[in-house]
């Protein structure tokens, strides 16, 4: 019964693995993200895509909540304003704390609601994650601000890298063809601002990326898709 390998090897594309599936043994390989070790064997702990890099076995999850890491850019929605801080939903298992010292404005005591109130959207950065997963975020950095207007869209956090593309190539292409302002949070949220046609186009592209996330050559296909009915490209 121990360590049976299932023969679901796809001939092309990336290999999908499931929890408890054996991936390798410990002296030959090292256990990376998304794996655990039991009796010197490496097993997958999540449903994901197998990725082996220099003896390190990683499993990149296909589904699941956003796992916050310090320094991540996230898009948050304010849940409530207290006298000296805000609670912000950043799509993680836990709400994040935004303290008045971590915003670029001078705030009088208990005046927090004047600046950010329930339902407001912000582009923030994860400041700290402690061992009991208490989260703090900050607005004190360049390129961090309150997002006014626009559309907020959610996607599967695991495909963040596919939406961004290599060195932001994907997002640059989308911005070029649709002339929208786009901000992508690592927590699975996208904020889009532009004219209605452009926004519509972006929504189509995002759902296309979501459906085809596990395939190769995605950026090229998206560019073809966008070029097909692009009128004026800057």
């Amino acid at each position, binding site marked *: 019964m121990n360590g049976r390998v*299932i023969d679901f090897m*796809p001939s*092309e594309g990336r290999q*999908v693995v499931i929890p*408890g599936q054996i991936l390798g043994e410990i002296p030959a390989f090292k256990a990376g993200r998304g794996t655990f070790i039991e009796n010197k064997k490496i097993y997958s702990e999540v*449903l994901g895509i197998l990725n082996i890099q220099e003896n390190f076995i990683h499993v990149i999850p296909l589904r699941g909540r956003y796992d916050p890491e310090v320094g991540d850019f996230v898009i948050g929605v304010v849940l409530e304003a207290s006298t000296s801080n805000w609670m912000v939903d950043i799509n993680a*298992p836990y709400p994040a704390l935004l303290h008045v010292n971590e915003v670029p404005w001078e705030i009088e005591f208990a005046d927090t609601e004047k600046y950010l109130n329930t339902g407001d959207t912000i582009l923030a950065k994860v400041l700290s994650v402690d061992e009991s997963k208490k989260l703090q975020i900050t607005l004190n950095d360049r390129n961090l601000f309150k997002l006014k207007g626009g559309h907020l869209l959610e996607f599967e956090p695991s495909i963040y890298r596919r939406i961004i593309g290599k060195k932001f190539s994907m997002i640059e292409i989308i911005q070029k063809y649709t002339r929208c302002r786009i901000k992508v949070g690592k927590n699975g949220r996208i904020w889009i601002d532009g004219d209605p046609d452009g926004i519509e186009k972006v929504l189509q592209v995002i759902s296309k990326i979501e*459906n085809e996330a596990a395939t190769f050559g995605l950026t090229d296909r998206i560019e073809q898709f966008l070029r097909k009915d692009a009128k004026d490209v800057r």
Partner: protein
Amino acid sequence: MKSNIELITSEGKRLDGRGPEDLRKIRIEAGVLHRADGSCSLEWGGNKVLAAVYGPREAVPRHTQNPLRAIVQARYNMAAFSVEDRKRPGPDRRSVEISKVISEALERVVLTDQFPRASIDVNIEVLDAEAGTRCAGLTAAAVALIDAGIPMRDIPVACAAGKINGVVVLDLGKEEDNFGDADLPIAISPRTGEVLLLQMDGHLTYDEFNQAFDLAVKGCLTVSELQKKAIMQKYQAVAAEVQE
């Protein structure tokens, strides 16, 4: 309950035509609900079960939180129309018990230490019941957990064995459950063989128990393959679609 109904013939044929070691027909589909983080629809003979997973999210009320790990809260519920006559809606003694044993079975395989203070909520809704709903519910819940991307050590799976007219058989049907001698539902972690749930209704001798247990484990392993197939089908379809 004693009766003179012949549940199994001398040739080993059961009421629905199955042999003593045959399972009912099982169909599993992952990711059927859009609002839940993960979901699964499962049909096991005449059972129809829907499982939905939410989370990990902060556990409420606060005092239920564990500062070191996540809690798994399963809620087993039977629809009013799931049985003959009508079941009075709401939790009763039976469903509270099943919720508890399923929660504890799932908590064993979920890597709960990755989500301190959180709760992982599993909702199991029995739409149509025909004996063996706790096994069907747990099997569906396991697929829904994977669909939700919850980190786990293994994919738990459940199956029952029992005794009818003195013969040990696999996967009891409705009449066999009502008029049979014993029912033994178990859940295991198929990779390690660890037992996650074991209940027994009725009487078995020591030898019969061992025989029924081994049979149920065998059934679990068969169902386990179906679970894996269902997950793979859902997530490999994506890759195949584009290659056309």
